[in-house]
């Protein structure tokens, strides 16, 4: 069996955690899968999986090798796509990453529009609230909020987001409007303790306020719901409450004290040598996000 085919089987076993499932998916016999993995382990000189009667999981060496295999297999697929002409016509699978809520609200509509325009394409979204290594994790395009570190990636700025303090009109009617950051100490706070959570809220002009959050939420959605119900104030990125701002269900306070807005970029590797599937998506995403009046 050739090396790349063995790698393909190995990656699938790692994904399914089962020799039998891999065999079914690849239309092979279970013993053939077992033999392929054993041959690969002999070749490498290391155990790739820990096998028990009920499960198969990667060893530490297997985990590292799995990442390398994914990259190599992706390169092979790309080389084949290039030779087959997919640099002219989008084809294959496009993987897009973004922050969870931003992805759900602003990226999914772009991805579905893209798929409608390119029926030969399929897409995979990877929306998580942590930095994703585009190259290592096999991502084609990332939509990233925040200042970018230097990288070899191509970045196109498409808008910006504000980190805002907000509450419901009913809350402000009942409890008044904070006019300086220090006023927040007198208000009820629902804080999201996720990616942006901190007991200290920073504002522009180097102002910091240690807040006492009577309600701590592990998701932004929960904190937003509490604010929308008129319970208290919360701090979020403004796109996360876009519809509520437009409809007047939530309003912003302390706008004069905000930190400078965070940029939004579309990032992708390979620049102008990117395959057609990436270039077509980047063109669409840049146009749609720049036309988004909430972000620009």
């Amino acid at each position: 069996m050739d090396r790349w085919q063995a790698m393909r089987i190995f990656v699938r076993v790692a994904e399914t955690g089962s020799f039998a499932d891999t065999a079914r998916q690849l239309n092979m016999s279970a013993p053939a899968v077992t033999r392929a993995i054993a041959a690969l382990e002999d070749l490498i000189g290391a155990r790739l999986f820990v096998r028990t009667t009920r499960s198969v999981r990667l060893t530490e060496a297997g985990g590292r090798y799995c990442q390398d295999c994914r990259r190599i297999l992706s390169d092979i697929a790309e080389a084949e796509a290039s030779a087959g002409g997919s640099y002219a016509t989008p084809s294959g699978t496009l993987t897009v990453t973004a922050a969870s809520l931003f992805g759900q609200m602003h990226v999914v509509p772009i991805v579905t529009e893209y798929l409608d325009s390119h029926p030969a394409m399929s897409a995979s979204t990877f929306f998580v609230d942590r930095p994703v290594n585009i190259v290592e994790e096999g991502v084609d395009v990332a939509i990233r909020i925040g200042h970018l570190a230097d990288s070899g990636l191509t970045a196109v700025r498409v808008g910006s987001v504000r980190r805002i303090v907000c509450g419901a009109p009913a809350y402000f009617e009942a409890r008044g409007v904070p006019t300086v950051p220090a006023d927040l100490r007198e208000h009820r706070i629902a804080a999201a303790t996720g990616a942006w959570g901190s007991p200290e809220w920073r504002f522009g002009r180097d102002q910091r306020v240690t807040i006492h959050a009577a309600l701590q939420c592990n998701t932004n959605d929960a904190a937003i719901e509490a604010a929308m119900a008129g319970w208290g104030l919360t701090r979020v990125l403004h796109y996360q409450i876009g519809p509520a701002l437009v409809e007047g269900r939530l309003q912003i306070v302390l706008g004069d004290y905000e930190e400078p807005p965070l940029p939004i970029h579309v990032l992708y590797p390979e620049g102008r040598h990117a395959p057609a599937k990436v270039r077509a998506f980047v063109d669409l995403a840049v146009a749609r996000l720049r036309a988004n009046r909430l972000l620009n």
Partner: protein
Amino acid sequence: MAAFTLDARTRVAIELALTTDGHEPLDRHRQEARASALGLSGAEIDAARRGRSFDVQTSIALALATANGDEERRRHRARALKAGIGADACREIETFADRFAAA
């Protein structure tokens, strides 16, 4: 408490709120470009044209600026004072709105 001031952003928001459909498209375009240069997003410009703002105090200032008649003005002035917009700022908003509407 920081005093609310009728800054350039609030002024342009009031102008957007008071600009009726009858205005020249070119004027409206220039007004929008000026608002954009002052940092208002497209969605904020749309809201201002409807007489609203994403910001609590600016929203109340717009309500005061676009109020019809003395009674409505009195009501919105009371709301503005409660929301930390001082009496001087309220007068400034009303004067600015009157002058813009008369121009």
